[in-house]
């Protein structure tokens, strides 16, 4: 399959949105674009599954075009299982996000245009095999977020938008230094070629922190997580979904594919630092969530905790833990998107997100409440849903690392699940159950677009939860390559 389609289709959609007239056309074009994207993602999946054998190359469907020849910059794309999982995740969230924001009337053209632009960045990032293109797409994804939050957001939106944009830009500035450092020691931006070269340990040790922290900012690495709560809570629903579901995954993917894969020795050397901060993020995120009263803040802080699992999985450097990290990225993407969608649905009806003011919603809005409960249960790791699969994989993988301090970190991370259960059950109980505020008696339940959006995400969550082997098969070969490189195992 021609991978460039994954960039061209959203781009075409975005451009045609610009030339469309009226809310109806805008919606239809965006939905059509999102459906085509989802179709493409599945087509890619099937082609990969068909053609992938044990002897096939690390990256499939490669295409390379010399872009800036004098600097050895190529437009080079290709996918392995991990990228396909991420592309699928993106496609799911794009379509759900568009459905959820179906009724957006304020500057709708610009809104959907920016959503599409954001997805261009995400797809491009996940298929890039050239560090320059990767960086290019990483930065493309920043500006739409700024505008989405600043224009359509709520609360202290300008502040949040600015904070998010500046912190993410700071992240990419660090990434830039890391990339330049790699380039001037290998003279190529090609990820596959760099992976074959022996990069000296001193170089790795110098530039790994730049790349890892840079990408880490995107994925709420402690202590650079502060943009997460503000950004998520101020953003409009679809933007929150994109932010948590796609954008934070850019960081996780970058940490794995660029930092860990290209600088494996440094990854081992700094593994304890990563573990330390990931554990802090997990525990701090969980306890901070306990204190929140706003549903969006609850989900945002719990995202910090959950993304901590991704970094923990990467830092533990065992085959299973890295698998778990990727699983957790996919699972967390779907789950938070669902959570934010549910919160958005509640908020658009009750005009409040404060737990204390809500109550008894199950009686009037059974569908939305059920979605909310499913998202919550997935978040606390109920077996049968994706959250359980991902977290248990991370924990098992982490336990395989025999070092006693690493084991301690694992134990602490496991313990955070209890805290998660507390805040999820409490929030769910107070919002869904309990006495109902009489003002809410006339609320209407979800409309078709909201049902469809939630349904799509729930299908994803359940499939991963019930049949994790499917996705394990998909990402297995990719994570094998990375971990073998880290542990120095020759194929």
């Amino acid at each position: 399959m021609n991978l460039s389609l994954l960039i061209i289709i959203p781009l075409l959609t975005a451009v045609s949105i610009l030339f469309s007239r009226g809310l109806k056309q805008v919606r239809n074009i965006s939905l059509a674009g999102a459906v085509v994207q989802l179709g493409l993602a599945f087509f890619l999946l099937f082609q990969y599954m068909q053609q992938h054998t044990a002897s096939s190359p690390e990256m499939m469907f490669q295409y390379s075009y010399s872009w800036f020849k004098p600097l050895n910059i190529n437009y080079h794309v290709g996918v392995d299982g991990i990228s396909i999982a991420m592309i699928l995740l993106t496609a799911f969230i794009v379509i759900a996000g568009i459905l959820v924001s179906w009724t957006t009337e304020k500057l709708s053209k610009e809104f959907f245009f920016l959503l599409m632009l954001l997805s261009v960045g995400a797809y491009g990032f996940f298929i890039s095999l050239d560090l320059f293109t990767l960086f290019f797409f990483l930065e493309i994804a920043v500006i739409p977020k700024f505008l989405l939050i600043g224009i359509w957001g709520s609360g202290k939106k300008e502040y949040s938008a600015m904070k998010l944009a500046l912190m993410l830009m700071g992240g990419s500035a660090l990434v830039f230094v890391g990339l330049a450092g790699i380039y001037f020691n290998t003279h190529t931006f090609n990820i596959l070629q760099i992976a074959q070269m022996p990069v000296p340990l001193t170089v790795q040790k110098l530039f790994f922190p730049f790349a890892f922290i840079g990408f880490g900012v995107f994925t709420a690495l402690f202590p650079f997580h502060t943009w997460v709560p503000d950004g998520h809570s101020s953003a409009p629903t679809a933007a929150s979904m994109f932010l948590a579901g796609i954008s934070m995954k850019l960081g996780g993917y970058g940490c794995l594919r660029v930092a860990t894969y290209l600088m494996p020795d440094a990854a081992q050397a700094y593994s304890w630092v990563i573990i330390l901060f990931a554990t802090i993020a997990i525990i701090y995120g969980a306890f901070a969530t306990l204190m929140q009263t706003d549903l969006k803040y609850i989900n945002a802080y719990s995202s910090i905790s959950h993304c901590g699992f991704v970094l923990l999985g990467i830092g533990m450097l065992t085959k299973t833990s890295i698998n778990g990290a990727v699983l957790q990225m996919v699972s967390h993407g779907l789950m938070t998107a669902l959570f934010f969608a549910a919160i958005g649905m509640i908020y658009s009806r009750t005009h409040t997100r404060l737990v204390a003011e809500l109550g008894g919603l199950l009686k009037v809005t059974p569908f939305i409440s059920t979605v909310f409960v499913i998202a919550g249960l997935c978040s606390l790791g109920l077996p049968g849903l994706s959250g359980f699969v991902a977290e248990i994989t991370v924990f098992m993988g982490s336990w395989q690392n025999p070092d006693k301090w690493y084991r301690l970190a694992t134990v602490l991370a496991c313990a955070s699940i209890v805290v998660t259960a507390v805040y999820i059950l409490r929030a769910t109980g107070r919002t869904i159950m309990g006495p109902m505020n009489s003002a809410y008696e006339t609320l209407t339940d979800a409309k078709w677009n909201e049902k469809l959006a939630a349904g799509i995400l729930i299908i994803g969550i359940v499939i991963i939860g019930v049949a994790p082997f499917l996705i394990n098969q998909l990402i297995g070969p990719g994570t094998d390559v990375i971990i073998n490189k880290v542990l120095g195992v020759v194929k």
Partner: protein
Amino acid sequence: MWTDFLILMKQEMMLIVIIFILLFLKLGKDRSNGSYMNIVNILLLTNLFAGFLWPTEGVLFNEMFRTNKLMILEKNILNLGILIISLQSTSWLETHKHVPEFYILLLSTMVGMFFMISAGNLLMFYLGLELSTIPLAAAANFDLAKRRSSEAAMKLIFSSALSSSLLLFGISIIYGTTGTLTFSQIPQYLNNNPLQIFAFILLLAGFAFKISVAPFHLWTADVYEGAPVAVTSFLSVISKGAVLFVFVSVLYTVFKPLAQAWYNMLFLLSLLTIIVGNLFAIRQDNFKRFLAFSSIAQVGFILVGISGSSQAGAASVVYFVLIYVFSNLAAFGVVSLVSSATGKESISDYKAFYRTNPVLSWILTIALFSLAGVPPTAGFFGKFFLLFAGSGKGNFLFISIAALNMIISFYYYLRIVKAIFMDENLKPIEKISIPLMPKLALYACITGVIAVGFISYIYDYIHLLSTGI
């Protein structure tokens, strides 16, 4: 053959011909401003296309004048810039009494710049520099009714005089220590002795004045604010671009033996410039002052690229200036339209600009993103290559500080975007109708901002031409 010079100096000749045509038109019957501007724009367009014909290399007048493909390209970039500025300033010039004089002044400046770019001798260089400065001061005074405009002109002429004197002092010491003024011969006699370093510092200071590198930037904001928008954009794009082109070639060829010395100086100056430009830009409310400080920061980034002292360094500077022409002129174009229609020049007036002027808002936003270096605009590629060329030296502390400074610059560009899109305003700037000429110019700029990055051929070509340097 004696006619060689006609081909080699064709771009200079073209400009001089245009100047004379304007002079004769002025002496002839009275014309409306509109017809003058149409004639000028057509002439400038022809000039731009003619510039690309017969690119030849050669040396004239005992190495006083030399030209090669890179120089021709640089001059073409400047030609493009003056065309865009001319198109943009139609709404301002429409009611002005002295249209042909304005163009004559600007074009004489351009002639000076062209000679400066092509100079093969320090004296020739100095001559070109002076020719490019003095008419510009007169042009800065062209808002005849405004006192601030005269003030700007005075400041420009004084600061230029100071920088020229520094340059002359430097040149004389170079002559004293090397015994020659010819570019090709100077390097043989440079041996890092302290007097030569001192002379180089004087020369550097002279250059630094022209491209407003901190701490020689103090005149910039005042002059930019007072001068008419057309002159401000000329100053910030064309005049700076020309000096930067010369600066690169002089550093990379003439002062190559002093490379270590100037690397250290550039290291300090560029960081200082970026930081000063950034910090002051945050506080500005006047749009022109804001663009002045942001252009100071941009020059700081350009110095980072220059400090890489490689082929990529030279190429990235020329490439960045090309992009800078498009993005800065797009921003100035919007500012100029707004300022001539409403007289409003402060950033807080732009609050809720999007509600009344969506097209202009997007143009301004894209231009600002390009200045900030955000993809997919060309500014991203420009900045990336500059920093990238700078990191070729392996000084990653330097690059990290520069890269992190991009966050600050990002902040103040986003501040304007925020004002345009997000802030509330009871009395936003009313709907502005865009006349044809500025519209063409703005669309050309935006096309450039979006396309130049993706069309890698442009960078490849510039890189190829920079081999000599």
